[in-house]
């Protein structure tokens, strides 16, 4: 399980964040003692760190530099300091991403996903049952058959695939699409999903995407 360390002194935020991360299937840990964070990081070896800049006892940017000296754990700065200087500094110290408060949690999760993917350099091969998904080419194929997905359909399919067996809300899909610069409206989303469905039907996965009324969609495992 992927372990995420939350270094944030506002406990209310930290705990809500923990809940969100856990719900998305991450193992989240809230830092309570800010005196020896470096030591904690060494011991816990998290897969990713969410780091605030304004911390008691230590400055987040300084901490970022110290952690970077030792290892390459992906770090996302999460802060209410929103000047260009802060962001440029953090990025030059080796942060992987920079998010300002308040933020939309769905976007935070997308960014976490993106950073993790970059750091793991996982193989490009993604599978759904016996279907191979190749996002770069916009292709989904099985042995002797393939379908071509549009960019929007691919974004939707990948999101459903990453959350297989769980209900995905329309809002989440919409956020992912908009996060990928596809500013589509509600109708277009409905159209895209029904096209994706009919394309999956072509290669024998008719009932793969189920609609849960008033909740969203599920891609069956």
């Amino acid at each position, binding site marked *: 399980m992927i372990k995420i360390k939350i270094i944030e002194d506002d406990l209310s935020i930290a705990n809500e964040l923990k809940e969100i991360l856990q719900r998305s299937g991450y193992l989240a840990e809230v830092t309570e003692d800010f005196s020896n964070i470096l030591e904690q990081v060494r011991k816990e070896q998290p897969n990713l760190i969410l780091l605030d800049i304004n911390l008691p006892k230590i400055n987040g940017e300084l901490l970022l530099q110290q952690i970077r000296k030792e290892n390459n754990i992906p770090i996302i700065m999460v802060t*209410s300091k929103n000047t260009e200087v802060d962001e440029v500094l953090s990025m030059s110290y080796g942060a992987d991403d920079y998010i300002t408060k308040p*933020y939309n949690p769905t976007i935070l999760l997308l960014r976490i996903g993106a950073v993790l993917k970059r750091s793991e350099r996982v193989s490009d091969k993604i599978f759904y049952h016996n279907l191979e998904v190749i996002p770069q080419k916009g292709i989904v194929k099985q042995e002797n058959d393939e379908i071509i997905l549009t960019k929007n359909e691919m974004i939707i399919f990948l999101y459903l695939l990453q959350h297989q067996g769980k209900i995905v809300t329309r809002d989440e899909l919409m956020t992912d699409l908009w996060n990928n610069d596809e500013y589509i409206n509600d109708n277009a989303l409905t159209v895209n999903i029904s096209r994706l469905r009919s394309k999956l039907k072509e290669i024998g996965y008719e009932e793969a995407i189920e609609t849960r009324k008033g909740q969203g969609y599920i891609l069956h495992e």
Partner: protein
Amino acid sequence: MSNKEYLKDKRLYLIIGTSIYFVILLILLAFKVNIEATLAITFTYLVGLITILIVDYIRKKTFYTDFKNKLDNLDQKYLIVEMLQDPNFLEGKILTDALYEIDKSMIEKINEYKKQTENFREYVELWIHEVKLPVSSLTLMVHNHRDEQNKKLLSQLTRLDNYLEQILYYVRSENAEKDYLITKVNLSKVISNVALKNKDVLLAKGIDFIVSDVDIEVLTDSKWLEFIINQIVDNSIKYSKEKNAFIKIVAKEEKDRIDFAIYDNGIGIPEADLPRIFDKTYTGKNGRTSKKSTGMGLYIVKKLCTKLGHKISVKSKEKEFTCVKISFFKDDYYKVLEKETK
């Protein structure tokens, strides 16, 4: 200082001088001094009097002409003290000393206010960052406790955050010091952030958000630009039509600049209001009649654009459209710096 003015100023001395001459003349006549001696004394006396006047005139004329010229040419008049030559007469010395003292006390006073404003500014910035914590906490809580009230709560939180951003950038735009950073910024990234921020309200109101050709780099501060575009898009949303509303965003590369336009088919701006929309606290007909408006948004936007060296203009037709255009000049960095140092 003209000769006439000078003589007028010295008329008392002239009267006294002339009177004394007549007294001397009477004394000379009383002692029956011969005519040659009387003439010689008269001549000496007159030459003496005129010489004194001329010497005094030249000393003062040089100093005051120089003083006036420098004062006229100076942009910041109070700097005159630094530029004056030392006067070689008493009144001049008294004047320069007094000016020096006055300047000193004024500068002390200004510094006091400067410090006060700076402290206030720092506190406001700090305060905004503090307030953002409960706002983010609330946002997360709302996401964690899903129910139908969610959207309403989130939209109120977004509003709150927008107002916080407005005061933050107001404080920043009023700050004389340079606290932005110009880098190469891809427009599509900034627009993406603005789009995500406004996604919910755009979808709820059924406003189509159409973006094309924005994969271009411009020289700007990305955070400031994000605020600027967010304000403009926020206005487009506020003043949109009920049906078939859209916001179109396009960028176009020209030879020396990049033009960027935000076009909406909203209620537009009356022609009479157009020239004043960037004025502080000006709300216009739209602001007064339909929506709550502080008249600060566009004022701040304009100020930030000026600081960054971008040109902003608005075209509109009532009931039809509004188009805000921002021009980013290429390699404008040094020009921005120049403007700042002035």
